[in-house]
Every structure is written in structure tokens, then in C-alpha cells.
């Protein structure tokens, strides 16, 4: 169970940006860019939450805060009752993170890549081997385990990355646009992976621009627009608030409603 409440994150503006960009963007104030202003959502066991929002809405920033890579300016993130903002080390153990831009160590083999992260997470000896083997079998990675990552196809890299992200049995899995730029086959790896996690009762939070994936996988959605979560709830409630049975239309309607309030 992950509960996110009132997250805020601002970035200092680069000097050259300070004067050039007009303050037409309401998120740019007092020399800061308020990337995330108020984001709250929750995702329980066996639940898959889709994080939606236009480009620049603040999805990546939000997910990076979940992953403890960025420290929120305000707000809380609780995983199984533990506030990981106060205790990032707990958060790192509890979260499995994967983004579309995540890379591998090219000169290490697929196996070595996964084992390295297992070791960094404190796994050793038999426990390490059995956990890795379990993942390699589940993701059917046998064919390319001992090939260097730089020689792997995108699909193989993807699988290696997935194994790497969950090797420490995280309580929550966070994915940032995991399917962007992938072909149908490799996309399928991800979709199956998310389904597996759901079957294991692991909460999954993932951001995406593909609403068909949302329809396919998600129990609930959170829509972020200009740094603020505008909607958070079940798919059904989303369609209701968006006044449309089509996810696309509902998305547009909610974003437009949001702009009316501003």
C-alpha cells in the first residue's frame, strides 16, 4: 500500500531562463519552477494505478520523488505505514523503479547486470542465486543471460531491466512511461509483467500517455495537470467525472475543467 499526500517539488530556474521566459506559466514564480504543486493519490495491494497527464505535467518528477531520487519540498509518501520521505533508505528497499530511459551496463552480461543490483540490495549467496534464477525463468531470459547487454535486442534489454527492478522483491513497483518507444512485442513484456505483479498483490504505479494500456491494466487513475492532481479514483469514477464513456474524451474534459478553475 502506497499513500501519497500533498507532494510539492520546485526547481531553481536556470539564470538564463529567469528573464527570457515570460511568466505566462503560472508554475514559474519567484525564481523557481513549481514542477509539482499538489499531488495526492493512493494505491493498495493488488491495485494498478495509472498516472496520466499532458507533457510537462509533473509525472516524472512525482515518480522520482516516489523512488527517493528527488526529495519532496513538502508532502508525504507512505509505504506500508512508513514515511519514506523521512527515511529514504526504507523507501529504496521498498520500491522497484523502472523508467523508459533506464539503461544497463553494456559491458556486463544480462545476468551480471541483475546480480549486481541484487548484491547492492544486500542479497548474497544462495538467496541471491535462487532469486535471480527465479526471475530469469519467469521472464524466459535463458537464451541471452550470458550475452553482454550492449549486444542485446531492445526486448531482451527490457526483460533484463525488469528483472533488475524487482530483484529485491519490492513492496511497490513504480514505472515511468515503461512502454514508450517500444514495439508491440516488447510492450507485451511490460504488460505481462504488470499483470504478474498484480497477481502477486504488488501495488503498481505507472505513468503513461497510452490510454489503451490504462483500459487494459488499471484499476484506478490519477490525472496530473500542471503539477496538481485533478482527479484520483477508479476508472468508472474517472469516466463519470469526465462525462464520457471514452477515456480520451474524459481525459480532455477533466483537463479543460481544470483550466476553467485556474
Amino acid at each position: 500500500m502506497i499513500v501519497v499526500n500533498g507532494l510539492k517539488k520546485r526547481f531553481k530556474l536556470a539564470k538564463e531562463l529567469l528573464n527570457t521566459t515570460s511568466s505566462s506559466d503560472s508554475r514559474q514564480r519567484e525564481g523557481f519552477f513549481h514542477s509539482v504543486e499538489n499531488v495526492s493519490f493512493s494505491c493498495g495491494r493488488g491495485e494498478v494505478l495509472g498516472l496520466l497527464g499532458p507533457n510537462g505535467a509533473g509525472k516524472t518528477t512525482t515518480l522520482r520523488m516516489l523512488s527517493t531520487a528527488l526529495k519532496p519540498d513538502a508532502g508525504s509518501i507512505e509505504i506500508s505505514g512508513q514515511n519514506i520521505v523521512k527515511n529514504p533508505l526504507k523507501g529504496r528497499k521498498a520500491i522497484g523503479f523502472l523508467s523508459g530511459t533506464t539503461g544497463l551496463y553494456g559491458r556486463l552480461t544480462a545476468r551480471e547486470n541483475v546480480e549486481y543490483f541484487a548484491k547492492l540490495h544486500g542479497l548474497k549467496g544462495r538467496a541471491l542465486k535462487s532469486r535471480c534464477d527465479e526471475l530469469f525463468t519467469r521472464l524466459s531470459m535463458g537464451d541471452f543471460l550470458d550475452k553482454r547487454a550492449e549486444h542485446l535486442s531492445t526486448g531482451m534489454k527490457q526483460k533484463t531491466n525488469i528483472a533488475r527492478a524487482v530483484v529485491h522483491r519490492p513492496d511497490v513497483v513504480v514505472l515511468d512511461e515503461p512502454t514508450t518507444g517500444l514495439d508491440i512485442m516488447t510492450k507485451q513484456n511490460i504488460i505481462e509483467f504488470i499483470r504478474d505483479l498484480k497477481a502477486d498483490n504488488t501495488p503498481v504505479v505507472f505513468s503513461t500517455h497510452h490510454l489503451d494500456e490504462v483500459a487494459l491494466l488499471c484499476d484506478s487513475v490519477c490525472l496530473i495537470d500542471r503539477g496538481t492532481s485533478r482527479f484520483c479514483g477508479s476508472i468508472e469514477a474517472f469516466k463519470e467525472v469526465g462525462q464520457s464513456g471514452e477515456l480520451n474524451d474524459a481525459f480532455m474534459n477533466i483537463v479543460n475543467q481544470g483550466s476553467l478553475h485556474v
Partner: protein
Amino acid sequence: MFEVFLKEVKELLRDRKTLFFVIALPIVIFPILFALLGFLASKTTFEAEQKVHIYYLANASLSPDFEQMLFYHKSFRPYKGNEKFETIEALKSAVKAGKIDVGIEIPATYDSQVAGKHQQISWHVVFNDAQSINFVYKRLEKLINKFSAQIRSTRLEALGAPQKEHPAILKPITITKVDTADKRENYGEKLGALIPYMLIPLVLMGASYPAIDLGAGEKERGTLETLLLTPVTRTQLVLGKFLTILASSISCALVTVSSMAIWVAIAGGIGVLDTIIDAFSSVTFTDFLLIFALLLPVAVMLSSLVLAISIYARTFKEAQNYMGPLSMLVFVPIVVSVMPNMSLNTTTAWIPITNVSLAIKEIIKGTVDHSAVGLIFVASALLAGALLMFCIRWFSKESVLFR
């Protein structure tokens, strides 16, 4: 931390490009350098020795004896053209135009019966001294001195001194030189100044190639973010990476110094390049060890520096852009060390790189002060510590990690 170190080393060993620069280059650079130096030196010397100089003797008629001497010298040949160069100015422009190699002007006041006169007279020798290995002046000077000696002899005899007393009159006291500064100290000054120029940049190279990969490369490939999400602390990460870079840098230094030692031995065996062998002749195995030990503080300092740069850089390319000027900048403290009157003492021991480069020079000269060497280690450790703190701080700073 150890996991990070082991993995980085493993990855490094699989990188051919880095291996080439860290291991292969230092091995081949010395034989190439020695061979090139020896070849060039012997070639230019040989050419200079073989050269026959075309001369013009102004007012030749005033000294037929000298004209004869010059004419029959194997390295001189008279100018065959029709032009006359009877003044110094004319000789100068003839040398400049390349018509002659050397011009000699016997002043018009010169009297061939000089033997009876009691005055000095000045001849002018016009030539171009721009070439570094140039025998024309030396040869001519020798010839004129010989001629001069003949005249001196005649004069002394005219004054009533018999031939056999001439040496005692001309040089009543002769000196036999007993020099305690051996060859080592003389050559050591020159060679010892040269060695840091080769060694320290190689140590830097051994550090900077892997560093680019370990810092900026990690950002560029998108592995940094996941690395930061492991329970490993930033300090452990930085230390693991630092140790890897240090190991690479030290291997580079080790390979370099052993390669230098081995090639000096080989060159000694086949008897080429006597100058270099002479200079190294009394450098003992212990000295080689000491040189290597001194490269450690340089390696520690440079490793932490390049890691800091690499972590700060956003991309591979940006890191390379910073490393470029650095490989030039590293020469500055080395140049400082070869400036006159610079020696290793308790003050200079605090200047990074300059200190080590001074120490290496003095080891080869055989005049090193061991307590100052101790101070070098302290100074370098402090500096490296400070730089590593920077690395750790930057590795925790969002604005550097997600620029």
C-alpha cells in the same frame, strides 16, 4: 562499496579502448620515444658532420696564409660565384640569401706582417646560428685559433723566448678537474625534469578514461538513477568508483614505470643512447620504487579530481570537454617544477604535482630530501580527501544529478 568496486573493475577490464590507453600505450611509449630521440639525434649529428661549408673570405689578399689554410680544410669550400662581398653587411646578406654558409672579414687594417706588431686585431665571422646542431662556427674558430697560435709562436720567438718555453709562458698553471658532481647529477637535472612530463600525464590518462565512463557515462546511459535507488550510500558509491579510477591510474603508473625500467635496461644492453643510460646508470631499483610510490599521491589526487569533474558533467561529451583542458593544465605545475632554483622543500611540498615532479627530478639526481617526500603524501591525501567530499556532495545534490 566493495561490490561497486568489483563491478566497475570488471566492466573496465572489458573496455578495450580504456585498456589500450591505460596499459598498452605506456608500454610502447618509451621504446618509441627512445628510438625516435636516438634516431633524430644521430641523424642530425651525422648530417652536420658531413656538411661542407661554403665560405667567402673578404680581404683575402691581406692574409694569404690563412686563405691557404681555409682552402685546404676538408669541411670548407670557397664561394664560386662572381659576386663580391667585401663588407660585413654584404657578407650578412649573402648568408641570408643562402649564397654562402659563412663569411669571414679580415679588416683592411690587417697587416700580414702582424708578427712584428704588438696589438690585437678583430676578425668578423658571419654565419647563421639558428640550427641547433651546427658545426660551422666551431670549426672556423678552431681554424682561426690554430692560425692565431702560429702568429703567437712567431711573436714569442721574436721576443726571444725559445719554442720549448712557450707552454710555460702561455699557461704557467694547468688545472686538473676533480668533480664530485658525478654524471648522474648533471644529466639527472635534465632527464629528471623530463621524466615527470611523461609520467604525470600518463597517470592522468589512466584516471580520466575510466572516470568519464564511471561518472558522466553512468548519467548518459541512464544507469545512474537506478544506482541511486539502491540502499548503497552515496559515500560508498563515490568511494567504490574512486577506488576503481585509482586502481586504473596506479596500474597505468605501474606499467609506465616498469616499462621505463625495462626499456632502460634493454637500451643499456644494446648500448644505444649513451646519454640516457648514463643518467639512469646510478638510479637504483629502490629509486624506481620511490618514483612509483611518488606517483601514488598524484594518482590519488588526479583520480578524485577527474571523478568530481565526471560526476559534475551531464554527458560523456561534456566530461571529455573538461578533461581536454585538464590534460594541458596538468603541465603547468610540471613547468613550474623545472623553473630555475625550484627545489623540493617544506613549502614546495604543498604544491600539488609540482611537489611530485620536483621529487622525481631530485630522485634521479640523487639529491632528494626524504622528509619533504613524507610531506607530499600528507598534502596529497588532504587534497584528495577534500575533492572526494566534493564528489560525495555532488552525488547527493539533485541539481547536479538531474541537470
